[in-house]
């Protein structure tokens, strides 16, 4: 019910919205909860487990009950708190966890069965048969209990991540936060003031107190305006600080467009804010009282009733009753009476209190029962004068206030019990460089909060070396907070503690009775404090009940662990920008566009995109294309972009000595303008990477690495240079990106190169493993006569700006000569035919000995991994060694990942003889080939072994052979003719 002329948004324009399909009218500035209450909608949801009718409990982000779903299809957004969702024209909200309708929910039958569904019920009841838990019981339970559902469709909305930095982060913009921000800003600090509400002011927006002789809300608006005018202040509304992390870093969730109909802007932004200092002014949360059937729609916290009344001009009931153990009862009654709302009674659990206005008061009072299935109708009150029923449609309750200590506990701190306010307060120093002020540390009067905010900021700016400007504390109410303990009220019916997880007093007592006495165990046993609200309303009351049940005090009982996030953060916000092309950087070669133009499917090699094969018209399978490309290289000439290989420029007086130290073989003896294959070991003696290194001058080398290990090798060189051999004067830099490099491979490779090089080359000037500068159209490039295909081949490189151009010309020339471009599939076949290894073979568990390169580990010098590679166990013949495999029946398949067994032996682990690492179909030889590791393989060439692939159901008898299948003498690569 709206009260004419009342509320901070009294002048707001009408806004149309719907709830469960019914159209209602709210007004600008409302939350969904305020607008629903204004329309007398009290029933808004069904509870998690028992499907009990539930209404709006609070007016903030701690709301456990009023969760709704907004949006449809991909944009469906569940578990939105109606108490923080701002109203906008056309907003359509749906209730959750009810079928067929909110008023007639079939699953409410759970509530009748509640005596059988107490805490721990699942664990005791569904134990047998064991296999039923996962397949039968759990799915049924999960379907019956639940909150909102996600759509299951990919969310197309935009989300954002961002970083911010400041000197002082003020968390919460109530009276303490506003003063803290103002003082810090006036001292010259860079200030971020963040508040989860759409409007700053905190409780000043919900109360009728005055500050400096003015309405509290007006005063707050003034301070906000002053802050907004300052260059060194950033105001962040709708922003919840969700976590406190190391070194002054805070997580924060900004709800950017939740308050509007769909726009192009991001829905949410996940911030990481780095602050030199922080001031926590997060206020306090009111706790309910556990009395019988305290969960009916219409029963809400007293602070929420005042918020709806004073901020939004909404009376949550026509005849309101109030039940409290503190002075909030009277504050609420006075506000309601002043607004013309009937107060049917104030039930105060204390004895020595008097009414502050025209309303009935029941001292020593307790609410011992409530009635009304879908909404509160009456309550039963026991008081010093007897027992009576009171008709009421709204009961405001207050069991006291809990300081919002959550963030102070995110680095494993525990709060401290304060007997004066019967709650926990933050422990000093729990978060480095964080100061707590105002209600968040138990200072509950408005004046106290203003004063505390000022004091906190003064102390903080002082530590930053800034001078605080003198500020007078604005005048405001300074009455003391008076409270008496009241944790639960005896009576018939369940006394709910955790409204979101349907946990009541008896559940906690049952946990204690069954020896789940630790608060952490009690939480897991009962589920108290879990789910979206994380027990913001219930934690303190629940552990008070547990303390009572276990005969301990509350401080000894302690709290559960507060973990981030303080309020729910959507996964979409944390992963913002990582959809589609944003998932990972894409590294494109200079031939990327030309490759796409030729219709080549791309495969990802690390972050690089490389062509798999280049389909020609009429080819229907990848294998057809691959076979053609292999034939091209073997018979004419092929082009392949190999720019992705790591290239490291190494220079310095000690460059040669450095290479001798990092490679197991020797590079100091390499002649200038020659290339040598090198093998690099890890410190543990296993193979790290391989590649070729060219000597371009006395003190100048260019090392190549595999595509996959480029970063790892660079890191390794840095480590060796800085930590192991700082004595060596050597420098290195990645030049991977500087050069576009192309393999030109095949019998006609030299002919092709001579069509693009400014000066012809021949077999004498460029023998196998020669390298040097060349000129292409006047551009200085580099030419390396190296071969990964076994053919007479070169790699030619030019500065990357010319890469695309050179690639197109090489391809055109190759095609004119009957060759063409080839992709990764053909490259792989070519190298397997030649027995060249890749990281499929040097996978991290093999030694140089295993791959047949044992003699490459030079014993004339030391190198990384040398000593470790000689350890016992690494040189035994029984080790699995690199060999080749051919199918005995040439038509049979070989598969990578298959394991090897002696023919006739059971294909089980104990009989395992080795495994297959690489396979291909060789069009050159007309059958499948494989590389792999076989126990004592080097001595078993010519034997047969059984290859068994359990995964694919393949079993093939293979002949073991030398890993080089094609041109074992390397005559093709070494071709020297000048013709």
């Amino acid at each position, binding site marked *: 019910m709206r009260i004419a002329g009342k509320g901070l948004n009294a002048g707001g324009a009408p806004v149309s919205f719907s709830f469960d399909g019914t159209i209602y009218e709210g007004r600008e500035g409302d939350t969904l909860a305020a607008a629903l209450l204004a329309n007398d909608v009290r029933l808004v949801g069904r509870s998690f487990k028992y499907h009990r009718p539930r209404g709006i409990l609070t007016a903030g982000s701690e709301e456990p009950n009023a969760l709704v779903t907004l949006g449809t299809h991909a944009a469906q957004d569940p578990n939105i708190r109606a108490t923080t969702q701002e109203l906008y024209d056309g907003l359509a909200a749906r209730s959750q966890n009810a079928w067929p309708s909110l008023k007639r929910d079939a699953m409410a039958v759970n509530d009748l069965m509640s005596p059988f569904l107490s805490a721990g019920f699942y664990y005791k009841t569904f134990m047998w048969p064991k296999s039923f838990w996962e397949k039968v019981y759990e799915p049924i339970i999960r379907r019956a209990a639940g909150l909102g559902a996600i759509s299951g469709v990919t969310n197309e909305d*935009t989300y*954002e*991540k*961002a*970083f*911010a*930095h400041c000197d002082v982060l003020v968390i919460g913009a109530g009276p303490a936060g506003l003063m803290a921000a103002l003082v810090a800003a006036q001292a010259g600090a*860079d200030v971020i003031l963040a508040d989860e509400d759409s409007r700053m002011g905190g409780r000043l927006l919900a109360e009728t107190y005055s500050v400096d002789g003015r309405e509290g809300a007006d005063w707050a608006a003034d301070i906000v305006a002053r802050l907004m005018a300052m260059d060194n202040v950033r105001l962040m509304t709708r922003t919840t600080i969700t976590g406190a992390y190391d070194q002054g870093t805070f997580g924060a969730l900004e709800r*950017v*467009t939740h308050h*509007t109909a769909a*726009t*192009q*802007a*991001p829905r949410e932004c996940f911030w*990481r804010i*780095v602050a030199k200092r922080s001031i926590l002014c997060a206020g306090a949360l009111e706790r309910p009282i556990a009395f019988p059937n305290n969960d009916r729609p219409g029963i809400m916290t007293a602070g929420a009733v005042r918020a709806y009344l004073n901020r939004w001009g909404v009376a949550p009931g026509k005849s309101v009753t109030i039940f409290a153990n503190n002075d909030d009862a009277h504050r609420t009654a006075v506000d309601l009476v002043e607004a013309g709302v009937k107060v049917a009674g104030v039930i105060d659990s204390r004895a020595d209190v008097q009414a502050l206005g025209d309303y009935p008061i029941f001292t020593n009072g307790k609410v011992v029962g409530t009635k009304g299935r879908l909404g509160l109708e009456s309550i039963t009150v026991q008081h010093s004068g007897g027992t009576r029923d009171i008709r009421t449609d709204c009961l405001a309750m207050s069991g006291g206030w809990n300081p919002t200590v959550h963030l102070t506990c995110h680095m494993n701190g525990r709060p401290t019990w304060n007997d004066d306010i019967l709650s926990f307060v933050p422990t000093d120093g729990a978060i480095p460089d964080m100061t707590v002020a105002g209600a968040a540390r138990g200072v509950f009067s408005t004046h106290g909060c203003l004063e505390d905010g000022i004091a906190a900021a003064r102390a903080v700016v002082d530590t930053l070396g800034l001078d605080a400007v003198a500020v007078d504390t604005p005048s405001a109410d300074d009455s003391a907070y008076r409270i008496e303990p009241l944790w639960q009220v005896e009576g018939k019916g369940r006394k709910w503690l955790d409204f979101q997880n349907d946990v009541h007093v008896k559940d906690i007592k049952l946990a204690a009775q069954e020896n789940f006495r630790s608060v952490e165990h009690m939480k897991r046993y009962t589920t108290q404090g879990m789910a979206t609200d994380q027990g913001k309303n219930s934690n303190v009351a629940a552990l008070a009940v547990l303390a009572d049940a276990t005969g301990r005090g509350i401080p000894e009982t302690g709290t559960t662990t507060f973990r981030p996030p303080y309020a729910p953060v959507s996964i979409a916000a944390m992963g913002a*920008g990582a959809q589609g*092309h*944003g998932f*990972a*950087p*894409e*590294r*494109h*070669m*200079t031939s990327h566009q030309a490759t796409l133009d030729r219709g080549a499917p791309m495969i990802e090699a690390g*972050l*690089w995109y490389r062509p798999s094969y280049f389909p020609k018209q009429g080819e229907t399978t990848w294998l057809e294309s691959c076979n053609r490309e292999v034939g091209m290289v073997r018979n004419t000439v092929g082009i392949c972009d190999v720019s992705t290989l790591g290239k490291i*420029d190494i*220079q*310095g*007086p000690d460059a040669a000595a450095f290479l001798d130290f990092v490679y197991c073989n020797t590079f100091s003896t390499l002649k200038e303008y020659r290339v040598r294959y090198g093998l690099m070991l890890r410190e543990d003696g296993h193979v790290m990477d391989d590649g070729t290194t060219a000597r371009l001058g006395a003190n100048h080398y260019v090392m190549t690495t595999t595509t996959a290990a480029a970063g790892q090798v660079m890191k390794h060189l840095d480590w060796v240079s800085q930590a192991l051999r700082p004595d060596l*004067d050597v*420098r*290195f*830099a*990645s*030049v*991977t*990106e*500087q*050069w576009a490099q192309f393999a030109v491979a095949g019998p006609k490779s030299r002919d092709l190169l001579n*069509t*693009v*090089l*400014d000066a012809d080359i021949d077999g004498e000037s460029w023998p196998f493993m020669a390298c040097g500068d060349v000129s*292409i*159209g006047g*551009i200085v490039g580099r030419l390396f006569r190296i071969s990964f295909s076994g053919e007479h081949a070169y790699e030619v490189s*030019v*500065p*990357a*700006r*010319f*890469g*695309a*151009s*050179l690639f197109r*010309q090489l391809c055109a020339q190759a095609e004119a000569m009957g060759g063409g471009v080839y992709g990764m599939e053909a490259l792989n076949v070519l190298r397997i035919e030649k027995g060249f290894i890749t990281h499929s073979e040097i996978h991290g568990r093999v030694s140089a000995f295993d791959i047949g390169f044992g003699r490459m580990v030079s014993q004339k010098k030391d190198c990384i991994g040398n000593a470790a590679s000689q350890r016992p166990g690494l040189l035994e013949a029984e080790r699995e060694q690199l060999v080749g495999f051919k199918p005995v029946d040439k038509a049979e398949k070989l598969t990578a990942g298959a394991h090897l067994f002696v023919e006739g032996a059971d294909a089980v682990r104990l009989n395992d003889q080795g495994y297959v690492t690489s396979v291909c179909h060789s069009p050159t030889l007309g059958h499948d080939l494989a590389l792999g590791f076989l126990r004592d393989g080097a001595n078993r060439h010519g034997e047969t072994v059984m290859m068994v692939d359990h995964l694919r159901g393949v079993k093939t008898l293979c002949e073991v052979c030398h890993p080089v299948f094609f041109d074992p003498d390397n005559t093709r690569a070494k071709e020297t003719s000048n013709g």
Partner: protein
Amino acid sequence: MARLIANTPCAGLLPKTIGSVSLSEVDAGVVTLVAPFNGQQKAVSDALKSAIGVGFVAPNRCVGTSPRVMWCGMGQALVMGVDCPDLPAQCVDHSDAWAIVRIDGAGADAVLARLTPIDLRASVFKKGHTARTLIGHMTGGITRLGAQSFEVMVMRSMAATLVHELVQAAENMDARAGLSA
């Protein structure tokens, strides 16, 4: 004989103007990575100063406009916009190694704050300051050129991703600007 045509890393991707910010590709000219050998930093600096007017730079600094010298890692700097003289240092051609994008206009810092964790406040990250950092998921460099002017550089092969990330961030900022309070 071939005739080679040069392409820039961001060819076909830039320039773009999104709301108040513009993105454009930077041609830094000849770029040489210089890493002085042991004990040669002063000699390198002196030689550079006499040859191009700018010496070797301190970490996180970029000195000069054209030519300029930009710190780019431990003991390394990029000499940009000029042929590098002979130096007692490793000198490597990096003219083609980087994709460099300039972002100008009101809110340029806010756009970058979507992508980089470093503190870009004008009081902390001043004109002539440079940093090796993360840009989205990429490692790269950011240099402040002016009040609302920055240069962002990543590996050349990541040019398309850099433009994608910058455009996405700028579009988000532009869409935010259109929101009512």
